C-alpha cells in the first residue's frame, strides 16, 4: 500500500482547465504523473458513462474540471456537468464506489498555479482512499 500510485482520469475543458494545465506546463510547474488528462471541449459533454467506464477500467479517481460558473465558453455546460456529478454521486456510492473518488472543480484559464496545487492535493487525497478495485478480475 505504501507504494500505491493512484491512477486518476481528469476530463478537462478545452477553454479553462486544459488551458490552465498548459499554463502550468509552460510555467514549468510540476504536477504528479498520476493524472491522465483527457481534453474535452466542455465539461457539459462529459456523459456519466465516461466516468463509469473510467472507474470500471480501474481508475482510482475521476476529476471533471471546467470553467468557473458564469465563464463557460458554451454559456452553461458547466452547470449541466454539476447536475451530472450530483447524479453520479447519488448512484456510484450505492455500489461501493466512494463519493470522494469523483471530484468536480472549476479551474480558470489563468489559474496555472492553482491547477498544479489542486492536482497535488487530488493525488494525495486519492492515495489516502486506496486502490479502487484491488481485484479487477471480479468486474464483469
Amino acid at each position: 500500500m505504501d507504494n500505491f500510485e493512484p491512477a486518476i482520469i481528469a476530463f478537462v475543458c478545452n477553454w479553462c482547465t486544459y488551458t490552465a494545465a498548459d499554463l502550468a506546463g509552460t510555467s514549468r510547474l510540476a504536477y504528479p504523473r498520476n493524472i491522465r488528462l483527457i481534453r474535452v471541449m466542455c465539461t457539459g459533454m462529459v456523459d456519466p458513462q465516461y466516468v463509469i467506464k473510467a472507474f470500471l477500467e480501474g481508475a482510482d479517481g475521476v476529476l471533471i474540471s471546467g470553467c468557473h460558473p458564469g465563464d463557460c465558453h458554451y454559456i452553461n455546460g458547466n452547470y449541466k456537468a454539476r447536475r451530472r456529478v450530483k447524479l453520479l454521486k447519488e448512484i456510484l456510492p450505492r455500489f461501493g464506489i466512494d463519493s470522494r473518488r469523483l471530484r468536480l472543480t472549476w479551474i480558470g484559464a489563468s489559474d496555472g498555479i492553482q491547477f498544479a496545487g489542486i492536482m497535488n492535493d487530488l493525488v494525495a487525497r486519492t492515495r489516502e482512499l486506496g486502490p479502487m478495485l484491488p481485484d479487477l478480475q471480479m468486474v464483469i
Partner: protein
Amino acid sequence: MTQAIHIDNEDWLSGIRSFLATVMDKTGIDAMLVPTRLAVKNRIMPMLVSDPARLAQADPLSPAFPVNGAKQLARLTRLPAGGKLAAVLRPCEIRAFNELVKLNQGKRDDVVIVGIDCPGALSNTDFRAFADRHETIDAATQAFCATAFSGGPVDEAAAFTSACRACNHPTPDGADIAVELFGTDPTHGLTARARTEMGEAVLAGLDLPPAEAVLPQRKTALTETLDRRRQYRKQMFASVAGATDTIRGLSAYLADCVNCYNCRAACPVCYCTTCVFTTDTFRHEPFQYLQWARRKGGVKMPTDTLFFHLTRMAHMSTACVGCGQCTNACPNDIPLSDLFSLVGHHTQEAFGYVAGLDLSQRPPMCGFEKEEYGEVVGI
C-alpha cells in the same frame, strides 16, 4: 360540469367495454389504444381500435401486462396523427407516458387518457399460465377481478410481479378520466371520474347518470393496499441495497446477464432511437479484448455488462416509473426492476423529483440553476 358518472352493468368487463364504446361514439374518437384480446389466441396486447365493434374484445382489466403502452402511445402522438385518439392505460403507463411527453417523445394534447385503478399485473410467464388455466380470457379476467380489488391480501395469491407489489401509485392520477375500482364490488358497476378539463368535457357528453360520492370502502381498500406495498417496498429496497453494496455484489446480482439489452428495449423511458451500446463504439477492436484479457488474466465475454447497467441507471433512473417491464423482459430472470427502482428512488429523491406525476416538473437532467449543489464541487 359532470365530475363523475356511474356505469351500471352486470359485470365490470362488460361495463368497461360499453363505457369505452360510448366514449368512442359520443366523443368522436377515431381510434382507441386499448389492451385487447388477440383474434388468433387467448392473449392480450395493446391494440389501436378504430371499429367500435372491436371493443367487445377489449380487456383493460386483465392482469396481462406484455408491454408498457406508453411507448406505443408515444409512437401515435409524436406527430399529429390526423385523428382524435384515446388510450386506456395502467397508472404506470400514464406515468411513463408523462415522462416521454416531457422529453418531447409524445404529446398529450390530442389524446384522451382513460386510466384504470391497478391492483397489479402478472409477469408474462405467469400470465400465460394463468390464462391457460381458464376456458376463455374473459373467464380469466372475471376470476381475477373477483378478488383483486377488494383490498384483502390478494397480492401473494395472484403472484403479482415484484414491481407491482412495491408500487406506491396504484391509482391513475394523471389520467383525463379515472375508472375507480378499488373497494367496489364487481356487481355494483363502476365509477368514471374526470381528472382534467378534457376529461370533464368527455364525461359531460356521454349522457350517463352521475356517480355517488367516493365510497368509504374505496379509501379503506386503498389505505390497506398502500400500507402493504410500502412495507414490501421497504423490505425489497433493503434486501437489494444489501446485496449490491459493492461492485462485486452488483456483479453477482447481474451475473446471469447476457447483454441482450431486452431490459432496455422493454423500458418505456429508454427512448433513444440509437442506444450507444448498440453503436460501433462498443464494437471494440479484437486487440482491445486481448489487452483486457491480458490485464485481468481473463475477461468475461460479452464484455461491458456492468458498464451497460450502470450507464442505464445514469441515463434513465430519474425517469424510472417502476413499471417492472425490465424484469419481465429479462430472459434470465434477473430482478432488474427491484434494482432500478431502488436507484431511481434515490436519484429522484436527490433532485426532489417524482417521475411521471407532475407534467410541469422538469426532468432533473433537462435543466439547472445557477446556484445549486455546491457540495459536489471542490477537492
